[in-house]
């Protein structure tokens, strides 16, 4: 009887070996498939229960200000994501929700924040050995909390919908990125599922789109601020700021007439004006004519050099493509009539506030365009630095001389611009814009723009403000200039 018993013993071993082989297949060979199956909640739950990294910014005196932190909790998710001054910084931080995923920087830098980024590997390993729970890395932003807060408060207090973007012209660091109306990311990270759902539904149902990050995800007709691009193209084409341009009160463009804002001659004279005067008075006929004379190639080339038409820019959030042509042919302006309208920032021209900020920042930086960036440094959980921002030049857009002339033209323009917030001893170079919008532009409130940099002789901040105004008679000067100047003042500090 022993022979069959031995055989049965062997069969038992065979069964176990089958089980082991199958377990090897399931747990080693197919493991990644199962782990990454979208229906497998484990990885997600694991990620949410990890101590997520902080998002911080440094203000005056190099004081760190926490924008997003975690609070240990006693429930299954273990940590509650908290945002200080949530609505102010929401366009920067984004949100982090168990049910609705993440947005903004929370999504763009998720791998760092949740600790799975390869750069954190060595630290993860040491956490594993020391038995400490793995933690996420921290993100330090380029944001200047004072400028961001000033810009947001000014916009929110006035009840404006719109955006403010401020850049450091020399480095491309994003100093402020405001979008109003905003939302409170704390409501989306709440662990109470019902509260989370309600907030999400309310925000999405709101017609004013509080969760839209207007700074990078929305495009606006730039109006007269686009004259800077035309002026740059003209200066690059060999003109100077003192060269005469037309001052006519009307131009025949296609089937319609193009007129100046005041419906009269530019500077009150039919005999031509200098380009500087034309820009400072924002004469439409002069720049429509200039654009028409330059031709589509030169205008398009200049626009492209400023970054218009780029579809792959990330800061690290993806930036919507800005265009001078229709959506189907982003960089091509149809006929000459279209080109002339493009010259004053109408027709199909649409820019993100960040794009417009880049244009003034480039002028401020002597014609060299810097890559806009939001992340100053990536820090390990113990706050040691893992990587730091590299300033990245995106190339020379215009000569230093042309940029200087354009700066002088903008200083003159600021002199002609009204609104609150002017300060003695601070020279600002700026341009306003009032862009017509909609199918019935005369009865639709315009977009009011203000783009500027300061101090003019040694620029430290470049800013673009756009307000989706409620008032049909609004102009850039009245509405946006005050907000822009407040942002500049906050960034430059009390003095």
């Amino acid at each position, binding site marked *: *009887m022993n022979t069959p*018993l031995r055989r049965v013993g062997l069969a038992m071993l065979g069964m176990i070996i089958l089980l082991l082989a199958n377990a090897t297949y399931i*747990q080693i060979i197919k493991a990644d498939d199962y782990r990454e199956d979208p229906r497998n909640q484990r990885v997600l739950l694991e990620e949410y229960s990890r101590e997520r990294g902080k998002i911080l910014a440094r203000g005056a005196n190099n004081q760190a200000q926490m924008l997003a932190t975690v609070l240990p909790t006693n429930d299954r998710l273990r940590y509650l994501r908290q945002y200080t001054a949530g609505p102010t910084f929401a366009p920067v931080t984004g949100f982090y929700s168990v049910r609705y995923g993440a947005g903004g920087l929370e999504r763009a830098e998720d791998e760092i924040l949740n600790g799975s980024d390869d750069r954190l590997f060595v630290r993860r390993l040491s956490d594993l050995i020391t038995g400490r729970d793995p933690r996420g890395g921290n993100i330090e932003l380029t944001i200047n909390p004072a400028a961001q807060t000033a810009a947001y408060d000014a916009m929110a207090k006035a009840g404006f919908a719109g955006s403010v973007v401020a850049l450091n012209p020399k480095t491309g660091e994003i100093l402020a990125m405001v979008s109003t109306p905003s939302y409170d990311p704390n409501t989306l990270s709440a662990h109470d599922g019902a509260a989370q759902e309600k907030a999400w539904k309310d925000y999405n149902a709101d017609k004013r789109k509080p969760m839209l990050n207007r700074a990078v995800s929305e495009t606006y007709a730039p109006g007269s601020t686009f004259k800077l691009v035309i002026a740059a193209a003209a200066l690059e084409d060999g003109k100077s700021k003192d060269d005469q341009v037309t001052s006519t009160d009307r131009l025949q463009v296609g089937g319609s007439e193009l007129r100046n804002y005041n419906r009269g001659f530019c500077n009150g004279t039919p005999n031509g004006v200098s380009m500087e005067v034309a820009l400072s008075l924002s004469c439409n006929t002069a720049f429509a004519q200039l654009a028409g004379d330059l031709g589509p190639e030169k205008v398009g080339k200049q626009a492209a050099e400023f970054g218009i038409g780029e579809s792959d820019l990330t800061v690290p959030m993806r930036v919507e493509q800005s265009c001078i042509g229709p959506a189907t042919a982003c960089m091509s302006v149809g006929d000459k009539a279209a080109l002339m309208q493009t010259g004053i920032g109408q027709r199909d021209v649409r820019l993100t506030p960040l794009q417009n900020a880049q244009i003034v920042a480039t002028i401020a930086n002597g014609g060299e365009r810097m890559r806009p960036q939001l992340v100053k440094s990536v820090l390990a959980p113990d706050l040691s630095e893992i990587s730091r921002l590299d300033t990245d030049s995106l190339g020379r857009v215009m000569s230093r001389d042309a940029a200087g002339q354009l700066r002088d033209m903008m200083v003159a323009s600021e002199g002609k611009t009204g609104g609150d917030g002017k300060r003695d001893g601070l020279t600002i170079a700026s341009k306003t814009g009032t862009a017509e919008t909609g199918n019935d532009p005369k009865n639709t409130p315009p977009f009011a723009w203000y783009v500027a940099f300061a101090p003019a002789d040694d620029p430290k901040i470049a800013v673009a403000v756009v307000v989706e105004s409620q008032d049909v008679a609004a102009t850039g000067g009245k509405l946006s200039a005050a907000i822009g100047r407040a942002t500049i003042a906050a960034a430059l500090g009390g003095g």
Partner: protein
Amino acid sequence: MGSPVQQGAGPAAGQSSASNDPAAPTRRGTELLLLGFAAFVVSAALMLVEANQEQQLTLRIFWYGLAFLGLFAVAHVAVRKFAPYADPLILPCVALLNGLGLVMIYRIDLAMTEKALRAGREINNDVPKQILWTTVALALFLAVLIVVKDHRTLTKYSYTFGLVGLVLLALPAFLPSVIAPTINGAKIWLKAGPFSLQPGEFAKILLLVFFAAFLVSKRDLFMAAGRRVLGVDLPRARDLGPVVFAWAVSLGVLVFQKDLGTSLLFFGTILVMLYVATERAVWVVLGLTLFVGGAVVAYNLFTHVQQRVANWFDPLATYADAGGGYQIAQALFGLGTGGVGGTGLGAGRPELVPLANTDFIAAAIGEELGFIGLAALLLVYTVLALRGMRSALAVRDTFGKLLGGGLSFLLIMQVFVVVGGVTKLIPMTGITAPFLSYGGSSLLANYVLIALLLRISDAARRPQTGARPRPVPQAPIAEAHTVMVERPT
């Protein structure tokens, strides 16, 4: 049935083993040491769960570990007294499995409690009940060890066992659903108040004892060849009785109780015992043919069998169907997430798999301890079953051999069916993992199984005092030949 038990099937039996040495060590010290090791591993596992779940460690764990050791120390003392030559590895293996099962059930309790708290529901924890069952099971273990002083005495009651086993097996199917409710699609439970029992678990072992005794007594009949067809000796038609009987019982369980697992276990084990008793592989071939035939018929008749097979082929495809592959898919997700090293005890999400603390406990272990943990667990089962098999090889009587072999195979068969089901090697049939899963009946029955194995192993290693040096019978002096005897120098 009272027929005499055959002694030693062949000259090889037992003699190859060292157990016939009169001075054979009992190895009880080894057993105690290994029990201590098992208690240590279980305490460490509990500590990991506490560390990962609550982040606070108290001296409580030490006391729990000690209490666990104490419980098994009682079993150890009983073995020392009532089966001193029993195999020293069997009890520690069982202690380790039982202990890890308790830790895992506790760990899943924690997760379920948290889930219930959030949903604002009350929940009954399973681990106190399982601890109670473990204590009761150990008491039953002692009782079997004390009452059954010699496993051969079981043959006297084999027909009684067979009858009782059949009745137990059939009971839930014929009782009204008030006391025999249908749970998870199977009508195999008896319920009285808070207690529920699966009589089928005990029936398995009773029927196994019956079959072992029956086969031993009728062994010669089975050895007789019937007609020879195509070079194969077919059994005689009337000898087919036991196979047909086992087949019918299995089919009955399958049809009336919809319990695929028990049916598979029962049939497989009987087949193996038949093979061991007759040493003829034709029984296995015949049995497998019957099984395949039955399976094909069942597949065509019952939609729930078709569903199971579909879930087995591709659980991810039937993931969202009612009665579909959700459960197996969740188990696979858990196993995949665990990977080689596992998430760590208490750090995974085994509660996402339905029935995580019973049928799917192997998935929970595979998730939190990884492939390494699952493999180690399978090897503990293997050691346990092979020690049983070794005892069966070494024991001198055919009944002991057959019973020991059958019980050992039953153990591995259970592991194969449940772990294979969870890991998608075979269709899921829904049985418990021996000693690991939550469930009193399975635990009690498996402890009886272990008590019997220990009894057989004791008999196998026990020195044959008195019987062994029995002198060769002397021929009567009148018939004796004259023998020259040389004076020793």
